[in-house]
């Protein structure tokens, strides 16, 4: 079975705004949400800079304390994004449809906040008693499980944990569930909340985090810039509603785009170092899929939301991979790294960036790569430096997610 897949709903919780409109407006304005991390442990951090969400109020979204007590911060983000996406799609599911609707989520560390609180109680405060909901808050599939529960979705209930590619993969695999007939509707995306002392400090130890920029902390993450100094961790969630195309059209749904292609590959090269040939394989697989599925030609790709983490090695490898795949034509593609503004949302980043690409396609507007002060000679594509572009003719867009562990996920969306 080879069915086509429509994107009919979008929800976002991000460091640059709650909701898809605030999110995309911030992107187009080049507005960064990267800031000094506010936390009791902030004085212990070497860098202390992150894409921290400071305007998310748990009690506003979850007034019932029994409910909120079961939800780690990452599940809260996921449920809020799912609510927005459902409302946006205007779906009212029958009982039969609920049995054919599933969830596919990505996360790197799941309930990291609850896990750290548990360790704090045991190890630092030397106590032996933990809140009963610790297990169900911490588990990696808590977000997908809670979404399934909230909307009574009884089809596949999946969670992918492939580090930075988690939610590129979760959306791609959700697409395949519909394409190959295992489900008719999928709620797909990712959620992450890992700005905890343990996780940030562990990342600092790996020496991949950018220091706080001395003059403008919001400009600490500078993908493709010669003076880039590393990635900045962030938190949030992104959710898309995927539907079988004919059914979406039949119900008169607003269709953002077609999810036209998906490719995944493994570098099988190094546990952390990105590898252009592996990335290129994922891009080529996605392009071949988009061509077969929706007739998308390579020349139709006008915009790539890059993985673009702002590490020295990563940005050069991705640039190289794009050139391997597109050849000379790579130079006419607008390549943006929106991580310059929202940071690296780890397990949520693939979803949030795919959403950025889909909204760019829908609005024919390309967000910039912010803080691109001085181009790196080894990064020689059009990175849309500092200023977004409107009135751009886009037929199809690509979103790249490349992970530690070697997992690569590439998604392609095309105009309907």
């Amino acid at each position, binding site marked *: 079975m080879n069915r086509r897949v429509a994107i009919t709903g979008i929800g976002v919780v991000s460091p640059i705004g709650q909701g898809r409109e605030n999110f995309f407006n911030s992107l187009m304005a080049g507005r960064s949400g990267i800031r000094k991390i506010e936390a009791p442990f902030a004085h212990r951090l070497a860098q202390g800079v992150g894409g921290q969400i400071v305007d998310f109020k748990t009690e506003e979204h979850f007034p019932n*304390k*029994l409910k909120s*007590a*079961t939800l780690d911060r990452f599940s809260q983000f996921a449920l809020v994004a799912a609510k927005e996406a459902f409302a946006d799609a205007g779906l009212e599911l029958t009982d039969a449809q609920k049995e054919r609707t599933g969830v596919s989520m990505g996360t790197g560390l799941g309930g990291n906040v609850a896990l750290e609180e548990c360790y704090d109680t045991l190890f630092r405060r030397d106590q032996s*008693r933990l809140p*009963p*909901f610790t297990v*169900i808050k911490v588990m990696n599939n808590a977000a997908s499980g809670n979404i399934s529960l909230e909307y009574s979705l009884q089809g596949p209930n999946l969670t992918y944990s492939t580090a930075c590619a988690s939610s590129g993969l979760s959306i791609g695999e959700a697409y395949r569930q519909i394409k190959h007939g295992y489900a008719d509707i999928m709620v797909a995306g990712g959620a992450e909340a890992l700005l905890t002392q343990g996780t940030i400090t562990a990342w600092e130890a790996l020496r991949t985090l950018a220091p706080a920029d001395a003059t403008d902390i919001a400009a600490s993450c500078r993908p493709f810039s010669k003076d880039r100094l590393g990635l900045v961790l962030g938190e949030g969630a992104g959710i898309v509603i995927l539907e079988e195309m004919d059914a979406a059209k039949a119900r008169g749904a607003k269709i953002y785009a077609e999810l036209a292609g998906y490719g995944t590959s493994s570098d099988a090269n190094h546990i952390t170092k990105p590898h252009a040939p592996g990335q290129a394989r994922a891009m080529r697989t996605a392009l071949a899929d988009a061509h077969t599925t929706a007739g998308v030609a390579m020349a139709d790709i006008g915009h790539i939301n890059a993985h673009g983490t702002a590490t020295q090695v990563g940005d050069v490898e991705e640039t190289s991979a794009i050139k391997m795949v597109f050849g000379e034509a790579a130079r006419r593609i607008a390549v943006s790294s929106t991580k310059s503004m929202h940071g690296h949302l780890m397990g949520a980043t693939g979803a949030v960036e795919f959403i950025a690409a889909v909204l760019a396609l829908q609005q024919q507007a390309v967000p910039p790569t912010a803080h691109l002060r001085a181009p790196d000679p080894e990064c020689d594509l059009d990175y849309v430096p500092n200023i977004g572009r409107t009135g751009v003719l886009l037929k199809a867009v690509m979103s790249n997610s490349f992970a530690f562990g070697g997992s690569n996920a590439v998604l392609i969306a095309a105009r309907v």
Partner: protein
Amino acid sequence: MSTTLERVQALLADKLSLETGKLAPEAVLTELGVDSLAVVEFIFHVEDEFKISVPDAQMNLKTVQDIASMVDKLKADQSVA
């Protein structure tokens, strides 16, 4: 000084976001939406509130009064001082 029952009722209203008016002594926990998982969560707060330790064997609680009675019994058993 509030009775144990009143303190249990207040704690149920606060920690589980339940309406005070529905928390009669004979009210059945499952009918209040307090399932077995929620009972486990609530007992955690009961232990804090009353400075007692609730053994796993005590978890067969059906009504609001059952919780208050359990608390009184455990307080008597555990108040060595």
